[in-house]
């Protein structure tokens, strides 16, 4: 899933650069940028377009620049610093990096291994669930930023068995879904059922009375969580032939 990330990065310049020149370079490197993945990377080294949503200089001490950078998934910050150095003419490299946001997750809400350990201990020794529930979030938090399609109870189990989602199975959906968008299929209780690819836009879904609205690509929910209304229909059909 391509999601946005935010990092705090310490960049070291290899020469002296004025604040104005540095800011001008950062402005140029905001928005859509070209990046060739670094030599030591796990993807093909072809130029790709990545987005820098915003960049901020938090603090500067001579050649050391502390920055906050928000970018699309798959952006290399090491490369961003290197390229910035090339543009400035003096060279630069990334000294340190810390991720502060990944999709819906924020550094501020993170827990440590010790928190996990203590929550497990409380649960095992006293049956206390509260701590465990505060360190572990439901899987639904992963799709917070994805457009969602909410389906009727009667459609859930068919999707769990691999059926695509028909318009008639939909109760609610997010605005501005376009054909080809990745969407999360949810129950009316807000549970994640599956991931899919929209075959119709929000408007088309609202106007249609039949047809496949979403191609299901990956099912998350266990089969049998919801009743299989569709099976009965199948038996009747077989019985009558």
């Amino acid at each position: 899933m391509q999601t946005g990330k935010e990092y705090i990065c310490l960049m070291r310049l290899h020469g002296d650069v004025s604040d104005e020149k540095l800011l001008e370079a950062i402005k140029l490197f905001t928005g859509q940028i070209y990046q060739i993945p670094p030599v030591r990377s796990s993807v093909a080294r072809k130029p790709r377009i990545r987005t820098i949503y915003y960049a901020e200089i938090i603090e500067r001490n001579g050649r050391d620049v502390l920055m906050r950078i928000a970018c699309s998934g798959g952006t290399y910050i090491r490369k961003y610093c290197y390229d910035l150095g090339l543009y400035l003419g003096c060279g630069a490299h990334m000294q340190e990096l810390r991720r502060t946001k990944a999709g819906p997750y924020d550094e501020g809400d993170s827990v440590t291994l010790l928190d996990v350990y203590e929550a497990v201990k409380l649960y095992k020794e006293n049956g206390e669930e509260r701590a465990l529930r505060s360190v572990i979030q439901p899987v639904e938090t992963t799709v917070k930023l994805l457009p969602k399609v909410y389906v009727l109870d009667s459609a859930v189990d068919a999707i769990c068995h691999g059926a695509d989602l028909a318009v008639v199975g939909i109760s609610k959906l997010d605005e501005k879904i376009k054909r080809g968008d990745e969407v999360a299929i949810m129950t009316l209780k807000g549970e994640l059922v599956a991931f899919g690819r929209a075959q119709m836009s929000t408007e088309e879904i609202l106007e249609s009375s039949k047809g496949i609205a979403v191609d299901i690509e990956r099912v998350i929910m266990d089969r049998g969580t919801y009743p299989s209304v569709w099976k009965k229909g199948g038996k009747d059909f077989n019985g009558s032939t």
Partner: protein
Amino acid sequence: MNSIVEGITPPWQHERRTVVRLEAETDPSYGYDPYERPVKMHLRLGVINLDKPRGPTSHEVSSKVKDLLGVERAGHGGTLGGLKPGDILLFPVCYLYC
């Protein structure tokens, strides 16, 4: 010196509205509100936003979490590629690159 260069709105600032196609109720006898699942199920369908310590690899840390929780599977990453029922998606948001 403190300067922000604003470009394009990041995904986490996008707002979405939901529209209704067909008003419907959900039967409380099936499934659970994601925040009210029984603990065992909550563990199986859980995510941890973990501040990864410097040193051990993400792989080592997720194996540690797996042992701590006594679950069968645990993974890590910014991707949902391998996510299946039964996975704990360990999410090292605050990943330190050394």
